């Protein structure tokens, strides 16, 4: 029978059955994807030489084995990371870095979520910034301290800041800054303390004095809650808003991803440092 002979096995199973999926499942979708242009008002930015270098470092260090770069159109995923990824966003990504495992979070919507300083502090000593992090420390991208990234460190962070820039979210500010009424109770403050220990101590320190383990890397320095003036006001409503928006020009990121109840508790606890003075 033909199916048991060399010719059948080699030419039909071997070559033809490899060619069919290649045309049908690879080349056809490729043509379709190449024709998908960004919607009007959006464009696919090319990587600058520095960003491209950063991308090579991302590949060299194998970041894609632990961080994916696409958000799936699934409710709990868009709520955590942001908009679902569109194919046109990645038209300049060669090779693709979609990834298949999330030991750490997805990075598709990383652009401008955090400051460069935050990234330096984090890459230099991940567990200083994110408690219990299992990410390796990339000390060879720095000259001995988090405040001194070398060319490679700078390039990597420049690349990280591009992730998702082609399709930025227009943030509706009111949704995250709507304070509601904040009644400070001992329970609320206690809950805030727990949240503070996971989210804030690395920079602001356990005592709220701005001397957390990551503080050395940051310019400007993290706020000393006990003594220094608050840039955006030190009443509990203002602190809540700062938590939502972050502080542009510093390493203070937005914590809008936390539920507003958590941010109310955090604001209450941060406020308590001042009252204890």
């Amino acid at each position: 029978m033909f199916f048991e002979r060399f010719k059948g096995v080699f030419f039909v199973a071997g070559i033809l059955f490899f060619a069919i999926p290649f045309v049908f499942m690879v080349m056809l979708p490729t043509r379709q994807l190449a024709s998908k242009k960004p919607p009007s008002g959006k464009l696919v930015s090319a990587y600058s030489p520095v960003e491209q270098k950063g991308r090579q470092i991302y590949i060299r260090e194998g970041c894609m084995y632990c961080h994916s770069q696409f958000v799936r159109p699934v409710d709990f995923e868009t709520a955590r990371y942001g908009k679902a990824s569109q194919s046109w966003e990645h038209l300049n990504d060669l090779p693709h870095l979609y990834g298949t495992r999330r030991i750490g979070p997805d990075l598709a919507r990383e652009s401008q979520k955090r400051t460069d300083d935050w990234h330096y502090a984090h890459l230099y000593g991940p567990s200083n910034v994110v408690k219990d992090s299992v990410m390796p420390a990339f000390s060879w991208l720095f000259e001995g301290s988090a405040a001194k990234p070398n060319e490679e460190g700078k390039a990597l962070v420049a690349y990280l800041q591009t992730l998702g820039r082609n399709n930025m979210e227009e943030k509706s500010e009111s949704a995250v800054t709507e304070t509601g009424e904040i009644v400070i109770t001992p329970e609320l403050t206690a809950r805030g303390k727990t949240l503070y220990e996971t989210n804030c101590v690395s920079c602001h320190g356990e005592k709220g004095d701005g001397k957390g383990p990551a503080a050395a890397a940051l310019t400007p320095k993290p706020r000393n809650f006990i003594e220094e003036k608050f840039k955006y006001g030190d009443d509990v409503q203002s602190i809540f808003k700062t938590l939502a928006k972050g502080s542009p020009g510093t390493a203070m990121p937005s914590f809008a991803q936390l539920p507003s109840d958590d941010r109310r508790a955090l604001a209450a606890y941060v406020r308590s440092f001042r009252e204890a003075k």
Partner: protein
Amino acid sequence: MLLSIVWLVISVSVGFIISLQMTNPSLFAGISFLHFGRLRPVHVNGVAFGWLTNVFFGMSLYMTQRLCRKPLIAFSLAQTALPLWNITVALGVLSVMFGQSQGLELAEFPLWVDALVVVCFLMLFIPVIATVATAMQPKLYVAQWYIVAAYIWTALNYVMGNTLPLWALPGAAGANIHSTYLHDVVGLWVTPMGVAAMYYLLPLVTKKPIFSHKLSLIGFWGLAFFYPLNTAHHYLLSPIPTWVQVFAITASFTLIAVVYSVMHNFFATMSGKWGEIADSIPLRFLLFGSIFYIITCTQGPMHAQVFMQRVIHFTDWVIAHAHLALLGVFSYWNFAAIYYFWEKWTGRSLKKNLSEWHFWLTTLGFTIYFLSLTAAGLLQGFFWKNPSVDFMESVRVSIPFWWVRSFSGLMIVIGQFIFAYNLFFSGAQPHGEVKTVHTEA
């Protein structure tokens, strides 16, 4: 051929040590070429191209000569290719550790190593294909179908996977072709070569013919047709066009029929021979590999479904599944092959109690490994389902499971060391070494 097996045992030991190192993130802190991101490709490529592929080369050269009843055409070409292949894989792995990765999983080797890979592969491809093509047999043996097809598929696949997604296809199109490459390495190289060894060994070990030739035909042609169509299932819910994903899901599901036809053949051939697994180490590895094969290939089509993907994708569940296939199935079948042929080829006699230790440490260790990562994967997936739970919670909850994984990984590693010790240092050496083997082969 002996040389290839010498290398593969080194590869497996190194592969498993590396997998153990990866469980502790702060290990080797500050040494750029030893952190997780650089060692993971060493482990993955070491297992696929170092350990598994070496046995496949050795077995396929041997089986082809036996099944075609003639010596290999251009044997010296193949003979040169084997050590060259191992040098190439070692160079590839080192180049990735020292920063030359191409960035595509299982296609990390830089271009200059890719070129060497292709040259070595062709040096094996040509003798095997030429031998079969000129054998003038009215029909080929089942194992030979798989060997012939695997060689041509892999020649095409390796070139495709290491060029197009790097130079021509960006973003989603790149992910699509990359998943095709990646899954075809497993499905069109590792699977057919493993199944070929299984089809070859089973009648030898049980001294019975394969149960049904018709089922063999269905299994082979089903794999050939459906397997390469299912590969986009690695990126479900991604920006790859939906119709491609739907098609891949459907093709994935058909594989249940394909795999079950092969496995029915296996278990029907086993009938009446079950008592022998107590004494025969090769048969026991074949059988356990086949049980793991059924589990893997039932899991596979199930998690190619979207409702499963939503939760388990990106988690350790998938890592457990990959180990089930490459360690539980194909490494087990390779162990069976090595146990069966080692004494014949080398004239050494193996120690039964060491083989038992190897079997039980590997099997128990792997079972614990699989269960702990599957459980961790489920927890991670369900933690992520609630967007108000901080991502770090999914890491914290995994840590006890990762310790269990390290412990069971250690059992597997020790098992492999015992295996290597048994192969190389135990037993007498009645007659000469490498040369006799070549003449016999």
